[in-house]
């Protein structure tokens, strides 16, 4: 009977539990998590902040999930180190947990840049449930907030704060918001919406100093401008939380390096989720892709392989679905290509806030942006994932009625009728 140990308790961990149990119903599974919660939907913390999600919605799995899957939980305990020779995980309480198979799924940790006044009260991050709870306690109507970073986390925090009645300014260093998932055109359209909801967006700038006595009372930007505020949220980015693997022989680049079976370089150790650096099929390179679906799928692959299966993770690439104030967007892969080998088509309908863009490389779809008109965007995701030659229907790809009807009949039959291609 194998002893499985999982460090972390979010999407990758749940994926791993479900992956292990597809093959092995007897092995013991131990989950170690610093956070004292059952797995919850991390992306929902902005909903929590905004008051549109309750405990029930936050729960990622049903109450009986751990029991049903025979999982022992070690919550509120931090795994501090791993002894890869004796195959033990050392805990913050001094105890050790032995493993036959270990999954590191510690996720990411916020990157807080060094800045003057960065030690004052009223500076928050926005990654965990506790962050949201803390912020919610102070986000009263009429207060002011500065969000450093106009990425996914920063803007989600901003949206949540606005819904709490907070006056929000977002400061972004890049020339556009959401620069990892949107190009200039799309970013401008989204920014317009944010501004329409009274979020003040400042681009090409950053906070150099946080002012106030003990508590935050304002910030000073690089350009010298001062902004009064009651709280600062740092949302510059997230880095793989590789702490537990530090000082071991586990190979780390940006994240823990894994092969296509999610195996680290040390035997019986796997990594998955935001902490892992796995192969990206679009960039064709090892990358950390900190998105929820990736985390689950990597976790599941890792779990199955830990339990003796032989499956590869072949769907790693960035993709996001997110909305701000009811403006939905779905983007995937390479959205702002650099180089001659790419081909781009796009459609803009400013009045409808519709923007659609497709990026091709050698007749394969490698990325897209869909703003407002997100319906059936998954077909495009599928085309990226399956590396389909889109040349027969390239010109239809962004059409409103694009679908399988434009695809070659043989492909359609295979996909829709369950008829295997010969």
């Amino acid at each position, binding site marked *: 009977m194998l002893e499985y140990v999982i460090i972390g308790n979010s999407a990758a961990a749940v*994926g791993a539990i479900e992956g292990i149990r597809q093959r092995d119903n007897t092995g013991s599974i131990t989950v170690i998590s610093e956070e004292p919660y059952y797995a919850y939907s991390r992306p929902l913390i902005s909903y929590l902040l905004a008051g549109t999600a309750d405990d*029930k919605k936050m729960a990622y799995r*049903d109450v009986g999930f751990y029991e049903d899957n025979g999982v022992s939980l070690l919550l509120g305990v931090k795994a501090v180190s791993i002894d890869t020779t004796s195959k033990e995980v050392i805990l913050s309480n001094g105890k050790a947990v032995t493993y036959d198979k270990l999954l590191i799924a510690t996720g990411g940790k916020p990157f807080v840049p060094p800045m003057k006044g960065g030690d004052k009260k009223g500076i928050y991050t926005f990654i965990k449930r506790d962050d949201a709870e803390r912020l919610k306690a102070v986000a009263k109507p009429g207060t002011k907030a500065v969000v450093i970073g106009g990425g996914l986390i920063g803007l989600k925090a901003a949206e949540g704060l606005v819904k709490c009645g907070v006056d929000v300014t977002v400061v972004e260093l890049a020339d556009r918001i959401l620069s990892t998932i949107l190009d200039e055109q799309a970013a401008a359209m989204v920014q317009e919406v944010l501004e329409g909801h009274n979020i003040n967006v400042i681009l090409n700038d950053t906070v150099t100093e946080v002012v106030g006595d003990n508590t935050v009372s304002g910030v000073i930007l690089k350009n010298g401008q001062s902004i009064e505020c009651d709280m600062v949220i740092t949302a510059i980015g997230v880095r793989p939380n590789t702490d537990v693997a530090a000082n071991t022989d586990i190979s780390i680049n940006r994240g823990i390096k894994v092969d296509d079976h999610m195996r680290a370089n040390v035997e019986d150790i796997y990594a998955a989720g935001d902490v892992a650096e796995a192969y990206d099929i679009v960039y064709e390179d090892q990358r950390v892709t900190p998105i929820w679906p990736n985390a689950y799928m990597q976790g599941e692959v890792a779990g199955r392989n830990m339990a003796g299966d032989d499956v590869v993770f072949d769907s790693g690439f960035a993709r*996001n679905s997110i909305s701000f104030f009811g403006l939905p967007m779905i983007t995937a892969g390479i959205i702002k290509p650099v180089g001659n080998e790419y081909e781009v088509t796009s459609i803009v309908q400013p009045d409808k806030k519709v923007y659609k863009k497709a990026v091709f490389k050698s007749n394969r779809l490698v990325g897209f942006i869909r703003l407002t008109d997100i319906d059936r965007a*998954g*077909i495009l995701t599928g085309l990226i994932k399956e590396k389909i030659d889109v040349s027969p229907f390239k010109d239809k790809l962004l059409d409103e009625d694009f679908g399988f009807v434009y695809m070659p009949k043989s492909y359609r039959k295979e*996909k*829709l009728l*369950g008829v295997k291609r010969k």
Partner: protein
Amino acid sequence: MKRVYALEEYCVGCRLCEINCTVAHSESKDIIWAFKVEEPRPLPGILVEEVKPISFGLQCRHCDDAECIKSCITGAMHRDERGAVVCNADKCVGCWTCIMACPYGTIKRNEDKGNVVSKCDLCPDLPQPACVSNCPNEALIYVDRG
């Protein structure tokens, strides 16, 4: 598991599958009430793709390896005891990650129903899905192809 498959050779694009899906998922199960009175009106779980002369109905494939379930950030999307992929509306927050994930494009946004997704549920209360029973040209079949 039994799934609905469309035979494009015989689909005439009449969209009665969409209509009947809506009726089957309405409160009244009555076509007039469902379309004229009931609010909100359920979205059809099936959609018809048509570029003449090709047309076919398409709904959730209830994939064995369902991307939507794996991608769902809240755990709302799940597989029920029948094997059907269904969405728990109480947990769905309308993040549309499943729409991003579904390679068939068969999940819809239901903005009338508080931003939750709407998709084929294989009509759990009927002997076979309403779209299949009501296709006038038998262009939808409900069979087990593994």
